[in-house]
């Protein structure tokens, strides 16, 4: 009985010390981790829009490049990141999208040409799909199929044609749903603007 009480006390004390250490570490690194995650998002947006930036520079350079070249516009709940050239014309627009993957969330960016219909490039910057199967969505060989596609099909429906990955039916389906959803969103945001 005495042994049990000691074990219990020991476990409680050890747990408290470990938890305290981890909480402290989390608090201390929170600002840096958040800045990294933010810079990561900005880098993906810049990449998708084709904005040139100093790849060796840190998070601050990325934020600067973003603020200098990109304008964020919200249209009916859809946020567009627009690449505005020095002449004031929009050169590309990007929309962030996300959805459920097979194992975890999938996040990506859809970059459009200035006509807001033609896909410039799609990138998936966060995914936890099965490596070698669904994980292939992050590769350029998968995403280049979208380059130049119109987000409105010839039949007039919003959506993109996805060439499914063999052996990754679930991931492919979910990507298809995600892309159709973001295509619809883009169209709706414009309808509200009377375009």
């Amino acid at each position, binding site marked *: 009985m005495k042994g049990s009480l000691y074990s219990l006390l*020991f476990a409680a004390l050890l747990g408290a010390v470990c938890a305290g250490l*981890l909480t402290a570490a989390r608090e201390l690194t929170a600002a*840096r981790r958040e800045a990294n995650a933010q810079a990561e998002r900005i880098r993906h947006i810049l990449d998708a829009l084709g904005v040139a930036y100093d790849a*060796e520079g840190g998070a601050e350079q990325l934020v600067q490049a973003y603020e200098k070249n990109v304008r964020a516009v919200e249209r009916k709940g859809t946020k567009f990141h627009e690449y505005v050239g020095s002449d004031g014309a929009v050169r590309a627009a990007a929309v962030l999208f996300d959805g459920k993957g097979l194992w975890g969330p999938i996040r990506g960016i859809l970059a459009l040409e200035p006509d807001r219909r033609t896909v410039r490039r799609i990138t998936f910057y966060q995914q936890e799909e099965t490596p*070698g199967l669904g994980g292939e969505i992050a590769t350029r060989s998968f995403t280049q199929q979208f380059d130049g596609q119109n987000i409105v099909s010839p039949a007039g429906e919003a959506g993109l044609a996805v060439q499914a990955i063999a052996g990754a039916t679930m991931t492919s389906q979910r990507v298809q749903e995600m892309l159709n959803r973001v295509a619809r969103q883009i169209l709706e945001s414009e309808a509200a603007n009377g375009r």
Partner: protein
Amino acid sequence: MGASAPNLAGGMPGAGGRPILAFRAGVWNDNPIAVQILGICSALAITTRLENALVMGAGVVFVVMMSSLILSLLRKAIPRRIRMIAEVAIIATFVILVDQFLRAYYWDMSKRLGPYVGLIITNCIIMGRAEAFALHNRPGISVVDAAANGLGYTFILAVVGLVRELGGTGTIAFGGRVLLEIPDYPRNLVLGGAPGAFIVLGFLVALLYALGLRKEREART
């Protein structure tokens, strides 16, 4: 050195008090990967590149040293019945610290290593050293033993990573800079992929045995 049967966990009683012997055992005679075949999952998974292998190795060296030190200091206080839970709690704490550190200061590396940093918790080497050595020895020698095993692990990972990166892509890159490049190298998908890890590690272990690893083991027993 007393004669002892090959000890899977490696903690030779005879080596307990002598840093040199403990060090040699960890790096060579009882190399955690080549001889004990522990910690194989991460050795296979992240050795696609030399840089990944070295950072992973550094993480394991840190965690195994710190957890062995703390566990050795606490060895008389830890109740026997819950010792494994205590081991895991302490190991997990250090692993999460490493993970947070990488996320804050080496973001790109943290992304490349993915879930494998967190999986250091389940790396058998670390718990193996705690169970077999740190809980029965003084802190100083425990840290030496832990460092040796971590370095033994890192050494194997680095060799496999070097072979796979060079053989798979024809280049060696470090910190985003290409250090070495074989011109016109055709990409080798087998070496870069999972089968390559098994093949390279298998040949490496065979080579180490051919180089005398087994002789030393036999001489010892």
